[in-house]
């Protein structure tokens, strides 16, 4: 089979999966728990090892009892986060499988703060060498847990990360900014 054929095949399989899931969803009730569970499958595009739920990017989720319409508040981690459009699209795609109207409100009503990251989110970040947020003087090396670390630069590869160096295990690492 040609490569193009494979791509078409994958696209068709995805389309069937989406139709299938939408069919199931309309048979069952759409509620806040189901919506949050679905959102937990949406990964952050810059850190695809952690979900937007574990990053604390979801605010209020409401389901209209009459229409079943879903309204989700999306909280950008940083005001100028360039990934927010991609995340919004991924949320819309995932929730489209419920087959109900979906509204996504990107808002600063509840400011995203780094302490919204869940314990599971912190563990997933540490797994790939990114220390979770803490006061600059309390940052620990995600590799060896040492506190003998120095801040190399407050600004890292993305808006939400700083650069550190561990003097104990002599490894550079990143830490989520504490905002």
């Amino acid at each position, binding site marked *: 089979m040609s490569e193009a054929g494979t791509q078409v095949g994958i696209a068709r399989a995805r389309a069937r999966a989406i139709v299938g899931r939408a069919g199931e969803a309309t048979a069952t009730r759409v509620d806040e728990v189901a919506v949050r569970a679905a959102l937990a499958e949406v990964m952050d595009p810059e850190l695809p090892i952690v979900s937007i739920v574990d990053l604390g990017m979801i605010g209020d989720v409401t389901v209209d009892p009459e229409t079943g319409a879903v309204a989700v508040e999306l909280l950008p981690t*940083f*005001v*100028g*986060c*360039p990934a927010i459009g991609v995340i919004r699209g991924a949320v819309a795609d995932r929730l489209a499988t419920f087959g109900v109207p979906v509204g996504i409100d990107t*808002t*600063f*009503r509840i*400011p*995203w*703060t780094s302490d919204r990251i869940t314990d599971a989110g912190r563990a997933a970040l540490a797994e790939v060498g990114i220390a979770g947020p803490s006061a600059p003087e309390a940052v620990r090396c995600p590799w060896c847990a040492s506190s003998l670390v120095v801040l*190399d*630069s*407050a*600004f*890292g*590869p993305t*808006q939400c990360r700083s*650069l550190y160096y561990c003097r104990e295990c002599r490894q550079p690492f990143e830490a989520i*900014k504490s*905002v």
Partner: protein
Amino acid sequence: MNTTAASRTAAQPTAELSGLLCSMADDEFVIGFSDSEWTGIAPLLEEDVAMSSLAQDELGHAAALYGLLGALTDADADALAYDREPEGYRHCRLLDHGRGDWAMTIARRYLYDTADGIRLEALAGGSWMPLAELVGKLVREERYHRMHAGAWLDRLARSDGEPRDRLIAALGELGPDAATVFAPLPGEPALVAAGVLDAPMSELETRWRASIAPTFARLELPMPPDMSDPARGRLDHGNAFRWLWSEFTSVRRSDPGATW
């Protein structure tokens, strides 16, 4: 602003708010573009990343502020950012001095970041929710900007010889424009009366001077003098800004109305 324009402004209920949003958005937009001029040529790799990240933060803040302004005045945020003539921008003259050397960049960033911090504090509890909510978020990010500028100010000021000399020269050049973040805004009393802003700009300038005085004293740096012409603190942008404007509008002007 002439008398006719001022009376027209007073007649519009949203005009004072628009003026405030425009001044803040233009400040963030212009300093963001100035910072981005260091991308690829900063003195250290970490600073290359830092200046690029600062630029990204500031342009993001500008986009959010132009978004609020656009919603208020029924205008497109991109048009607000890119389609005005240089004379139409209302950023403060502190940001009109060109990129300069590293000491100039640090001096400008330190003066701007500390002043912007005081301005944001004065808006954080404001009565207009869309702005107060956004400011709640901006304050958290700007803290890192101040840490960065403060650490560099310290490093340059305490390195006798060329670094300190250049820093003092930069502070001297910026001097008469240093406080222009607090140049009076048209309709400022109405903003204070409505509870959008917690005090007049002159009071914010006093707070700012009190906040930076201990650092300037410790580092034995000359405090910024008074503004040379407060009423024109956001007007009369010179050639350095005209050049920057020609850069940041060049793509937009090459194909007006194109979508990306």
